[in-house]
């Protein structure tokens, strides 16, 4: 047994400082981490994802390509599937469009509306886009489809993060 008795006041002092310190650390740590993280993480942009589409197989007709990537969202890490509509434009350049409708986010399809052939069509509120992704005035979408930056590697198509463009 220790001869040194801890008084009630001392005891409270110790425990409170202890708990308080612990709590402060708990609050501060994430803040510090937030501040420092971007520096530690390094360059993350410019990540290109491989698609199963061969460059040689890209035609003038838009085709749907699925690709998968992992997405981290706080608690979850999930395997997501992305989609792109890929074709060669008149200039022979490769174009990869995001299928997400700029109105409210449904998935658009190519050439499925009989009344509007050779256009991207959104089944939700009948939004229309030209082949190059430009939104058709008078239909709900107010902006053109986002565009993926593309890259070629070992004969296959790689896509980056889809970027918005200015509307019609």
């Amino acid at each position: 047994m220790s001869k040194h008795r801890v008084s009630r006041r001392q005891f409270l002092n110790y425990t409170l400082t202890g708990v308080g310190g612990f709590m402060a650390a708990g609050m501060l740590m994430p803040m510090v981490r937030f501040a420092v993280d971007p520096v530690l993480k390094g360059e993350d942009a410019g990540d290109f994802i491989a698609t199963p589409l061969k460059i040689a197989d890209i035609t003038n007709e838009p085709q749907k390509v699925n690709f998968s990537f992992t997405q981290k969202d706080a608690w979850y890490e999930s395997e997501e599937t992305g989609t792109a509509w890929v074709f060669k434009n008149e200039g022979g350049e490769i174009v990869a469009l995001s299928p997400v409708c700029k109105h409210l986010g449904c998935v658009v399809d190519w050439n499925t509306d009989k009344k509007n052939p050779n256009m991207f069509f959104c089944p939700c509120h009948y939004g229309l886009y030209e082949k190059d992704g430009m939104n058709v005035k008078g239909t709900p979408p107010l902006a053109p489809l986002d565009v993926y930056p593309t890259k070629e590697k070992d004969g296959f198509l790689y896509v980056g993060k889809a970027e918005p463009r200015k509307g019609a």
Partner: protein
Amino acid sequence: MRWVAADVEMYQKAAEYVDTAIVPLLPVSFGDDMKQNASMAEFIGILTTQLEKQFKGRIFLFPDFVYIKGHEASIKALKEWENTLLDKQFKHVFYVTSDSSWRQQEKELTGNLLWLPSLSLEHMQEQQKVSIVEDQVKQLLSLFTEKWQED
């Protein structure tokens, strides 16, 4: 749209465009069919998530309606749900379930019952799983677009 804050915010700004509600109906039990009910829930979960992704701008996927299997009060509770949804301008209400007991009660509901025999995805290969689900989703998608065209 889903029952998450970001989607609800979007919904509140564009409610007039979102006229279709989906409510998954999931039974819970503790008997022999416990595992079967769990795999139902998995299957319906995957399916409705895919549906929502395709039709995000027009469909609202509500949280699951969960009930004790065989409990008679479920239909009453579901009707309350239904009335609320219809009140809130949802023109189309769809229930997605693998529980066949709802088929006898379909007449009492205004919404459409989509009854899908449950597939156990447990022992399937990744590739097979994906193609089966994609197939089912495709069928459901055309069912929705047809309904919308009737408007």
